[in-house]
Structure formats: C-alpha cells, structure tokens
C-alpha cells in the first residue's frame, strides 16, 4: 500500500492512519487505545475476535530474522490468512510483504508503519509478533487490550513487573497467548519432561537449565557505552524513537539497530535469551510452571558487579526443596538449550541435538525416535491455532511464560548483585533486600505505560 510522506512523531505514533481499513480513532501513545469504542455493525467482537470461520486472519508486527522463520511456517498453515505487516523499519515491511504476496500470488498484504493501525483492524483475529525483546511485553499487552490472540517471540518481558503485567492483561482480556518457546513442542524435551513428571526418575532432586549466554558478552556495552550521536534516519525508513520504544532515551547511532538487541543492558532481557526455553522446560518438568524458586544463590564464575558477568552458575531452590540450576556452560554436549533432570532413581538429559541421554537403568524407556535435530516451530504454531479455536491455553501460555520470566529475572538480579536472594512468589517480592526489589521493574520512557495492577508497588 502506498505510504504517505508525513512526519511521524512520538506523540502521533499510534494514531497515524494510512490505510482505508484503519478506521478507528486512536487515543494516544498506547496503541491498544484504538480499541473499538463500541460494537460494530454486526455486534460486538467476541473474545479473541473469534469466529467459526474457515480461516483465521493474521497480521504481523516487527518481523525479521527469527520472525521470518515463524512467518513461513504460519503461511504453511491452511487455516491461516496473513493480511498485513506493521514495522517501524521500511525494509522489514517490504520484505514481509514481498514474502506474503509471493506466497499468495497477489498484492494484498498491507504495510503499516504503526502497530496501532494493525491492532485497529477488526478483521484481524490474531498476530505474529516478533519485534526485538524490549517491545514484546508492551505489544502483548496492547494486543490483549485489542482482543487479539498472539504468537509472540521470546523473551516475553524485560522485567519481573512487566512479566506479571503481561500475564495480567492476557488473562483479563481472555486472549490466547503462545510464547515462541517452541521446545515445549519438541519431542526430545517432551520425553525428558515426561520421565520427570511421571515419577520414572524417582523423587525429583534437581532440574538444570543451560542459560548459555555469557553476560560478559551481553553487557560488553552494558550501561557504559554511549556512542556519539549521529543524524537520525528518515522516520519512514527507520523510526528511531519508535524503535527505542519504552527504553530510556539515548542518542541515535547506527550501532543500536545493527547490534542493539543483545549488547546493551537497556535492550536485553538478561538470561532470557535461552532461559525462555530452558527454564520453561525445567519448570514444566518440576511441575512448577506457576511459581518460582524461593532461593537464588550465585556460585563460582566471575561476577564483576554492575551486570558484568562472564561465567556463572546460579543455584535456585523451590519451596519443596527441588533445585533449579542455571548455568552458562554446558555439561553433556547434547546441543544448545540443554536440560537435565535428576532424581533418586535416575536422570535424563537432552538438548537441541535431539539426542536423549539417560541413566543406565532407564535406557529401555528411550524410544528409537530420539536423535533427530529438528525445528518444532511448525508444531508449536499448530498448537497455537488449535487453541485459538478451542479457547484453551497452549503450552507456552502467558501464565507459565510469566512464571518462567520471573524466575529468570530473579536469577539475573541475583547474579548482578552477586549475593543470595530470597523470593516470595505469593508476595511477588524479594525478602529483606530492598535493592533487589527495586530491580523488579524498569520505568517506561514517556509516553508509554503499562495498564495493569501488577505494575503497582
């Protein structure tokens, strides 16, 4: 669709209407404020915009890299019709349109610079959201407030408070949320979790999660790198203010969009690059999907303070005594995103290689299917679409995602402070550690805001 050359400022982000289909009035900085002021011609939109129709209508927000992989699998679903893309980056918009139109052999995919426009489309049932990390939480909340179901890439939130706020909104508005933690639908992980949950390992003692990322690398820029300001790009090509989003202001530099996802504290969700997968699987195995460990203690490694950590193990303990061990160094050589579960009667370990290793006494249980490395995203997306139809929560739903994220953020705070912390899952706070409690949230840059009870102190 043609784009008008017009100034896009921070304050009109969320209300720049360029398409004939974008008819809703827009309230302001929070894109979800475009929610319809009342029922339309055919009555109110039901929860999740759900309708028993042959195809679910999808839109996308912020799709590049990993999101393109998701998109291709989504397009392969016969129950899906993908109709539009919103992105602050022109090249990304055009790449998605080209891909979608090429698949459908037409010119129908609409492009938007502003997510509010796609959220305002009443014909869209669900969204594929694959922005950079800092936008996942806000986008999820806006999608929920707009009544849209969502498949959203991980990590799901940048802080403990944002994790709870995201889950609050998804629950409140009754939409279907599937995090891009696709290993929840990967056979090797399912099998390992099954052994733990079925009691085949005896009394469960410890679950291990490879969080992989060396925080030394993550924080190479840390708080302490602020490049020289250079002229901002044309907002129609890349809207810097919107790219920056809720993060604290900083001057424009090309280094940010090129490297910004992982290398700066403001833009990074701590351990959650891999913990989104491995802690989710570990908590699933331990039947702790709706809570968090109560203790966190750093061990060994190199802790330099201020978030600068190059090697670590973080030992955590759930209230029932089961340990959760997080480390950024692998142990069994079974591939990335490894998990290991240990009980009194055996152990199991797996990873992205698809291979499954178990204690000798359990070898007869390991099926011949093991040993295959494959991407389970198609199955993960299929489960999401099934759940849109059934209005039931998928495996990586918002509640378990929030619990995973709170665990991982709490562990990261423990690592940054380099001291033992005690967490109260019911009160959602650390005990006797004010500094740690202050690190639960990150204030949004104006004019952005959350709308959730959980953000309140």
């Amino acid at each position, binding site marked *: 669709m043609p784009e008008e050359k017009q100034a896009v400022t921070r304050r009109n982000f969320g209300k720049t209407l360029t398409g004939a289909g974008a008819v809703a009035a827009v309230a302001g900085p929070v894109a979800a404020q475009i929610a319809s*002021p009342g029922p339309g011609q055919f009555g*109110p*939109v039901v929860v999740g915009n759900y309708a028993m129709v042959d195809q679910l209508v999808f839109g996308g927000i912020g799709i590049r890299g990993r999101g393109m992989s998701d998109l291709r699998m989504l397009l392969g679903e016969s129950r899906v019709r993908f109709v539009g893309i919103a992105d602050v980056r022109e090249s990304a918009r055009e790449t998605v349109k080209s891909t979608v139109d090429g698949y459908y052999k037409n010119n129908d995919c609409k492009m938007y610079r502003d997510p509010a426009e796609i959220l305002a489309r009443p014909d869209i049932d669900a969204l594929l959201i694959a922005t950079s990390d800092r936008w996942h939480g806000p986008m999820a909340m806006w999608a929920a407030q707009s*009544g849209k179901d969502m498949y959203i890439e991980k990590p799901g939130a940048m802080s403990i408070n944002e994790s709870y706020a995201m889950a609050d909104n998804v629950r409140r508005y009754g939409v279907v949320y599937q995090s891009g933690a696709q290993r929840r639908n990967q056979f090797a992980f399912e099998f390992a979790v099954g052994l733990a949950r079925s009691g085949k390992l005896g009394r469960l003692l410890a679950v291990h999660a490879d969080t992989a990322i060396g925080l030394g690398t993550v924080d190479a820029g840390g*708080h302490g790198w602020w490049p020289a300001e250079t002229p901002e790009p044309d907002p129609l090509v890349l809207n810097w203010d919107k790219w920056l989003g809720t993060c604290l202001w900083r001057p424009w530099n090309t280094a940010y969009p090129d490297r910004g996802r992982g290398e700066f504290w403001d833009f990074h969700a701590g351990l959650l690059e891999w913990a989104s997968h491995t802690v989710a699987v570990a908590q699933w195995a331990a039947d702790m999907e709706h809570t968090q460990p109560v203790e966190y203690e750093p061990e060994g490694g190199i802790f330099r303070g201020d978030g600068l950590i190059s090697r670590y193990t973080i030992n955590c303990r759930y209230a029932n005594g089961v340990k959760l061990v997080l480390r950024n160094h692998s142990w069994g050589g079974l591939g990335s995103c490894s998990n290991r579960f240990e009980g009194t009667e055996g152990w199991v370990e797996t990873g992205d290689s698809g291979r499954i290793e178990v204690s000798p006494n359990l070898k007869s249980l390991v099926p011949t299917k093991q040993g295959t490395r494959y991407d389970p995203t198609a199955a993960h997306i299929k489960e999401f679409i099934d759940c849109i139809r059934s209005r039931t929560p998928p495996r990586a739903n918002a509640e378990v995602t929030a619990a995973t994220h709170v665990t991982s953020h709490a562990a990261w705070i423990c690592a940054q402070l380099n001291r033992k912390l005690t967490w109260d899952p019911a009160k959602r706070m650390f005990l006797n550690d004010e500094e740690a409690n*202050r690190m639960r949230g990150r*204030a949004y840059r104006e004019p*952005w805001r959350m709308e959730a009870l959980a953000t309140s102190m």
Partner: protein
Amino acid sequence: MVKDPNSTEFQKAIACKKLAFVGGKEVVPTMAALLNHPHLACYARFALEPNPDPSVDDALRAALPKLKGLRQIGVITTIGVRKDAKALDALAKLIDDSDAEVAGAASASVGMIGGLQASRTLQAALGRTKPPVFPVVARATLICAEGLMASNRPRALELYAQLSATTMPGPVRQAAIRVLNAAGPAPAGAKPYPPPTGEAAEKDQSGFLGRGR
C-alpha cells in the same frame, strides 16, 4: 554527579540508573529537578519510580501541574505505578484535559491506583468522555473493578455490569462478561435471547425452544 554542571548528559544518565536501586530521600530533589528535561526526564522517573521514600510522591504531585505534554504524561504514569491515592483529585481533573494523551494517561493511572474514590471518578468519566479517551477510561474501570473484587465485591460487580453494556469497547465488554459469568447466575429477571420463530421453530419437534426457559 547529577548536580555537577561539568558532568555530561551520559554521566548523569548512568548516575540516575544507579540511584534507582540505591537512592533514598536525599536524591529526590535532584531527580525531581530533571522531570522537565528533554532527555533525562525518563532517567529521573527511572530513579524515582522504585524509590520507596514517601517524599517521591510529594515531589511528583508538586511537579504535576508544572509540566506539560510528554513530561506530564511521564509523571502521571509514575504516579499510577506508585499507587499514590493522594493524587486522585489532581488526576481526576486531568481526565478532562484537552490533550487526549494526558487525559488517557490520567485515566489509566486512576484505574491503577484503584479504590472507591477512583471507581467513582472513572464511572463518572465513562458517562462523559468520548473516543479516543473513552476506551482508555473503560479499560481503567476494568482494572479498578478487578482491584475492588477482594475488598468490595458488590461495588466491583456493579462496575463489571456497567462495563458489560453494548456501548462499551468490545474487548472490555467481553472481559466484563467473563467475570460476571464466573461470579454467579445472571440477575433475577434476566431474559434469554428470543427463541427462533417460523420455520426454525417448526423443526423443533420437542417444543423445547419455545418453552420460554
């Protein structure tokens, strides 16, 4: 460092980030002085928002009428996150601000602060605001109702009933209906959707549809 005129903007920003985790009452005036800074206002709020000292709330309330536009919106939002009930009167007035973004931010913060006074403020606003502020008021009322469920269930259900009206934004209405369905049976006297008539009714050999359940 923040007060040092020789400090760079970057140095001040980093100092604010550190003060978010360790700053006490002594840093509040310095942070408050930055609330109208075009670049550092967000850093000042980053430092103030988690600071538990009550003087933070006093400083934010004092700053509220002195700010405009984005900076005022930022302070409104932080007041909401901190649940400062003393700010409710000032926020209530801002719901009618000519700047729709200010009005929306004020509505959202009133909802997050919650309680009876907030519920009355929002209920009144539901009756007089128009899009684009109205949907924000509706969502804020939803949050306010949710917050009241534990302390004042009848009042919360009253709000949910109002939010279930056909005039409400679709997602808000559906959310309210879900809560009402879970809360108990429909009110006495509630009438079912009319049964089918004509040919469809004739197909119903049991007569069940026409019995006026």
